[in-house]
């Protein structure tokens, strides 16, 4: 009895601790962040982006601070974010005001030191980025790691978005391997049936 009591107490304590632990960190809500940053994204030669291919093309991201705003930040993070039409029926890309739970911006572009004069970065698109429509967003991060300001290339996640064309992941060698192994399996199966029949007929005839 005493041991089951102890077990019960341990269980309750664990659940309580885990429950508390999840509430400890403070929330940052996207809607409360000042839109103090101005971000643009273009092709490296300056032309506007239409479509870019992962693994091949790069984009040039420039950011500056809005002259009237005062931003107390140490770092600046730029991220690739999903446009609204790429979030439809895909709950794993859903937008949530709480930045801890927000899944709009899943791909990092760069983390740079913050400066009032602004900065830029050239980013070659990683092969693991899925095909979708995107825009670029920047967060100014303070010394504690919390977002203090933001800005993005698209005003409403619909206008001024660009398309990313992904790799397929398939290759000729994979297709050949698939074909060879499939044919081997099926022919081994039927070959076995045939040879066993012949073997047994021969045995019977003996």
């Amino acid at each position: 009895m005493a041991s089951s009591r102890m077990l019960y107490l341990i269980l309750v304590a664990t659940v309580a601790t885990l429950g508390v632990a999840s509430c400890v960190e403070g929330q940052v809500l996207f809607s409360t962040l000042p839109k103090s940053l101005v971000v643009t994204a273009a092709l490296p030669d300056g032309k506007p982006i239409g479509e870019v291919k992962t693994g091949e093309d790069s984009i040039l991201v420039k950011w500056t601070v809005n002259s009237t705003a005062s931003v107390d930040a140490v770092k600046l993070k730029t991220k690739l974010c999903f446009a609204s039409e790429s979030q439809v029926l895909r709950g794993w890309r859903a937008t949530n005001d709480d930045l801890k739970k927000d899944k709009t911006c899943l791909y990092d572009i760069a983390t740079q030191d913050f400066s009032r004069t602004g900065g830029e970065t050239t980013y070659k698109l990683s092969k693991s980025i899925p095909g979708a429509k995107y825009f670029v967003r920047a967060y100014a991060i303070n010394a504690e790691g919390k977002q203090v300001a933001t800005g993005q290339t698209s005003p409403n996640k619909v206008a001024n978005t660009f398309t990313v064309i992904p790799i397929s992941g398939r290759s000729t060698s994979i297709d050949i391997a698939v074909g060879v192994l499939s044919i081997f399996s099926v022919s081994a199966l039927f070959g076995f049936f045939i040879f066993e029949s012949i073997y047994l007929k021969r045995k019977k005839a003996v």
Partner: protein
Amino acid sequence: MADQSASGVGNKNAKGDPGTSMHGVTGKEPVYAFSVLQAAKAKPDPDAAKFALPVDSEHKATTMRIYSFRAPHMLTFHLSWFSFFTCFLSTFAAPPLIPVIRDNLNLDKGDIGHAAIASVSGSILSRLLMGSICDLIGPRYGCAFLVMIISPAVYAMASVETAAGFTAVRFFIGFSLATFVSCQYWMSSMFNGKIVGTANGIAAGWGNLGGGATQLIMPLVYALIKDSFKSPSFTAWRLAFFLPGVMHTTIGLMVLFLGQDLPDGNFKELEAQGTKAKDSFRKVFVNAVTNYRTWILLITYGYCFGVELTVDNIIAEYFHDRFNLSLSSAGIIASSFGFMNIVSRPLGGILSDIVAVRFGMRGRLWNLWIIQTLGGVFCIILGKTAALGPAIGVMIVFSFFVQAACGATFGVIPFVSRRSLGVISGFTGAGGNLGAVMTQTIFFTQATYHTEVGIEYMGIMIICVTALVLFVWFPQWGGMVFPSSKMSEEDYYASEYSEGEQDQGMHEASMKFAENSKSERGRRKGSNSPPQDAKPDGLKGIKEGAEV
């Protein structure tokens, strides 16, 4: 002697009654229902010496040695459960990798849901067919044929580009879950009735394990390929699928070369068996579908095994998305759900047997109802749990109850019908998949609510459907709530045959079973242990022949 050929094809008794070929296709038989010792003493068999295990007169093993790989019995056991394990592994190989696949193929929630439904719907039909296939060409060919013919589909997963292709491939791979039937059939051919329940329970449990192991193995293989070979993620997951594909081909070849249908050899090699009148398939089938208990247990099995399949399909993605875990971490947690199968399914059957000693069939029904309802309760709690640690704990408890309910269901199934046992077992197995299809369609395909809400609703549905067990009533034993009408077991099982058939004596085969099933009355004060003259089916032909 009227009929010397004791061993029928598969597990048929000497008369070749259908239904008996699937006799023992259960999760559990009452361990004491058959006594083999008298039979073995009565007829010393010189051939028995060539087997590594003690065998009965049909050369079926009377014990199991799990660590042994000796032909034919234990080698067959291992080939059988491992081929079933491989099929489970390949059927559920995609779910832990969904976060990568959905990005590569641009899937939305509907596409993922449809593919998941497709993965469990193919085997509804293939499980129904597999019993007949095993009767015709033997479990060795049946199992190997299925496993190897599906391997091209597994390989083809590496080449899919669209949602439609993904759904089609998962549909075809899902056919391979019919190896459940060949596995159980094969166990019934190799192991005596006294231990066939244990053999079947272990084989089924360890096979279902594949659904858990795959959640662990596939993300690890994916990570290995991605990191060691520096493959982009969209290529790495495709390469990972060669593992289940090669496993299919390999185990198929091993079954062909090392497997054996019966302890004495293969179907093709053995001569044709006795020419006794066989039962008509149509009558056996009609007998199965007109028994309302078949339908109730089919539906309730859909909400324990069906729920298990559904959870195999969604749980890794759920942990990845809700708790922000990596694929590997989500996979490890998800695999613990399937790993519980090592113990929970066999325990469900064992609990059913333990309860039946005291309370008989009523106890078995209460046992089933309690376990499955608790599964529903913990399902609801799982959907509501928002913290990672408790969610894992709740999931493990939930998995125990869901899988134990599967084992407990097959503690009841053998008693529903003697004549149509094979068909009913096949129906129940198919019902499990049907439940998976329905549950996934209703709760996990639409984007209107989150997965955790779907899990909650699924729990509520489990509880509601399990209430149907209240309606299972046996005239000879009663049901959960109502007592028996004091019909005798012999009358119940004889009533499966028409008057004309009874005049021909076709029901004789069921009478021994009816005698043994009196154990389902439960223990009364001063009652005896099981009848002393019980013996396994295989000797019935000899004994009856001697009496003629």
